């Protein structure tokens, strides 16, 4: 009963197959029963240098689940002459690189359009003064993305080191495209701001939601100590903003949506509303997935919704 250590055995030969085609690729030599999947990946890379470990997915079955880098071969039942499947995930790019492109881009692009460049507005660019609302909106937009950049650098802990390169183009198109679309309207010479009451009330809501979102990020960071792979149910901590965990699995997305709704009300701008909705759709998909995975992993998971309290 339980695990007991056998002596370390040589795994003389390990056969590697291509997960996409099912065909035999090569054999690896010199691994041990205590070697990990990461060792397997490094060994593969020795034969094909372009396949760095982050680009490989190793499986026991051709269409099976991905194995973890830390999995030990002996525990997986792998012996000499066993088969493993490797999938090439394509060119990868680091998460941090992606996030900087996705967040710095919108921030700088918005600030550029805020200057009312000739390229977007022609000669009429400076035909009317910039309203207070437009100034505040530029401030909020910048604040939001600056916060994201700082969080990427200092707060978030990433579970995967890299992501597919194609995602960079897809995501940047989304972020930069919408930035240009919203910025064009809010900074337009013919932009009509709402009443000051609406402006300030929405600004307050925006800042509150930004703080809420940050609070959740901090709580999630503290949930998993560095280097650990332990998964835990998130609960509210001493910060009152984290009480939202009692209502939803992903309050960070709830607050984020709140920020963009506030921004829309602040600017009374339909394109901003479209951006809020598009973001909500994507975040709802992620939240529902996360919620499902929480419920699957934890039998005692509390009664919560995924992203909208009582609704979704």
């Amino acid at each position, binding site marked *: 009963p339980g695990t007991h250590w056998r002596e370390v055995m040589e795994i003389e030969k390990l056969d590697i197959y291509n997960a996409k085609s099912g065909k035999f690729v090569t054999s690896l030599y010199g691994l041990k029963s205590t070697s990990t999947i990461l060792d397997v990946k490094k060994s593969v890379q020795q034969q094909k240098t372009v396949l760095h470990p982050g680009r490989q997915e190793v499986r026991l079955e051709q269409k099976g689940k991905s194995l973890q880098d830390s999995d030990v071969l002996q525990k997986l039942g792998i012996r000499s002459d066993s088969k493993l499947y490797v999938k090439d995930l394509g060119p990868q790019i680091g998460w941090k690189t992606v996030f900087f492109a996705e967040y710095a881009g919108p921030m700088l692009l918005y600030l550029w359009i805020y200057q009312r460049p000739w390229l977007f507005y022609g000669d009429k660019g400076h035909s009317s003064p910039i309203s207070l609302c437009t100034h505040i909106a530029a401030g909020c937009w910048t604040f939001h993305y600056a916060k994201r950049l700082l969080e990427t650098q200092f707060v978030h802990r990433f579970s995967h080191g890299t992501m597919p390169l194609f995602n960079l183009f897809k995501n940047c198109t989304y972020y930069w495209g919408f930035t240009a679309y919203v910025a064009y*309207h809010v900074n337009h010479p013919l*932009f*009509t701001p709402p009443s000051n009451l609406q402006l300030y009330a929405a600004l307050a809501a925006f800042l509150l939601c930004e703080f809420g979102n940050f609070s959740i990020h901090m709580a999630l960071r503290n949930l998993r100590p560095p280097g650990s792979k332990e998964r835990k149910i998130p609960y509210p901590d001493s910060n009152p903003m984290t009480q939202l965990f009692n209502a939803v699995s992903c309050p960070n997305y709830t607050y984020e949506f709140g920020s963009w709704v506030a921004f829309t009300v602040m600017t009374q*701008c339909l*394109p901003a509303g479209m951006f809020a909705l598009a973001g909500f759709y994507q975040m709802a998909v992620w939240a529902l997935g996360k919620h499902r995975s929480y419920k699957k992993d934890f039998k005692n998971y509390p009664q919560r919704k995924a992203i909208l309290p009582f609704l979704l």
Partner: protein
Amino acid sequence: MQAEELGWPTKRESLKKVYLFLYNLWQFVGFIYVISVMSTRYLRDGPESMEGTYEAVGWMMHLCLMTQFLEVLHSLTGYTKGSVFEAIVQVGGRGIIFFCLIEGEERMQTKPVIFYLFLVWSLIELVRYPYYLLRVYDVELSFITWLRYTIWIPLYPLGFIFEGVVILRDIPYFDETGKYSVALPNKWNFAFHFPTLLRCYLLFFFFPAMYKMMNHMYHQRIKKLGPTSWKKKFA
């Protein structure tokens, strides 16, 4: 109840089939009408008949294309197989061309491209609807199936091109009338310039869309008819 246990279809299934059969039949008849009137007019007046095409059959096209929106619902409710997204793209694309670009601009209605476009659309539908009619009752006539999965090869590119011509020639008209466009300032701080959207479609989406569509039909053809059926004949 007993009948169901014996394997007879439920009343609901039968009614569903009748509905689908009637739907496809109605559409088929509509397009037969369009083709018949267009051919008769052409046989009588030659190319001069093209100018009056919209006047003669536009109303029937309008009816058929309006009813075609039901195809999205058919997909959504599972009455027909096939993806909802595909149905939306097909019906929506045609809808914009017809309802916005043709019905929305009188000067477009008398152009010869309308004759060619209606002709191509009708020919495609004259093959598609009989195929579906038979499929409702799980019948497949190999000739109809072959037509359905082959005739797109000349007709889809032609359709795309004629639609492109309509769009291109409509741009200056919509620039002038400002129809479907929204200008600043307004309460919702929203601007929309329809001609710019049309230009962007032609510049960035026209060829990729045509490529994707053709590729999709090509794969469907292989699935249905087997790889390059002509190769078997000449092998």
